């Protein structure tokens, strides 16, 4: 019987950490034998949520030690993946700049469910019912 699995990564909220975290998530999903297309879509959605933290979550000049992002992936025995991408910043409620605003649209097109909780920092929760 497949086992439930978890991945937890915590990094400074800087652009150079986004790709390594995405690659680690890829390796995790490969180990769980996710099908190529779902794996790529999930890591694409994760990449967008992480990029949003780097770009929007923290004000310029904030103490770098307090600027982090946190990714938790958990897969249950039925292959349902819950992906939380969190930060300790402030969600910016505003209309996207011209030629922007694709990230959340991309996530919505991929994830089965998306919730954004802004009660303490921001937690973007995405769930995926996956083909493995």
């Amino acid at each position: 019987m497949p086992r439930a699995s978890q991945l937890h990564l915590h990094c400074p909220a800087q652009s150079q950490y986004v790709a390594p975290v995405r690659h680690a998530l890829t390796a995790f999903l490969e180990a769980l034998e996710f099908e190529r297309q779902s794996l790529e879509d999930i890591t694409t959605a994760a990449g967008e949520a992480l990029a949003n933290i780097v770009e929007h979550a923290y004000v310029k000049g904030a103490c770098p030690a307090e600027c982090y992002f946190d990714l938790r992936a958990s897969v249950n025995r039925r292959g349902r993946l819950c992906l939380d991408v969190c930060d300790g910043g402030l969600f910016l409620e505003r209309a996207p700049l011209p030629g922007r605003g694709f990230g959340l649209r991309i996530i919505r097109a991929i994830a089965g469910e998306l919730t954004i909780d802004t009660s303490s920092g921001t937690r973007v929760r995405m769930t995926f019912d996956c083909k493995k």
Partner: protein
Amino acid sequence: MSAGNAVKIIRLSGELEISRKYGLRAALTLSEDAAPVLLDLGEVTYADSIALTELLRLCVDAQRSDRPVAMVIKTPQFARLVQYAGLAGAFKIFDDETAAREYLAGLTRR
């Protein structure tokens, strides 16, 4: 002279993502000449919304000066990203360079 000689080719490869934001902007900024633009993105292994924004910017700039743009995209992740972002109608996408060149040559012949 074949129309192919007059095409401005921009080739990018690897992962087009947030850590390359400023490099992408520089690579995707058009010079003043009037040549049609072929964006060869066939060797791109991953792209994100930052890349889409820079590509969109280039297309808008090119349109202003009446320069056609053709893109070669081969990676399934990249092709799906464009669909998910709702940008399929904004870009002229081909899956090989010959088809992209033929499209540009056809436009310049008219």
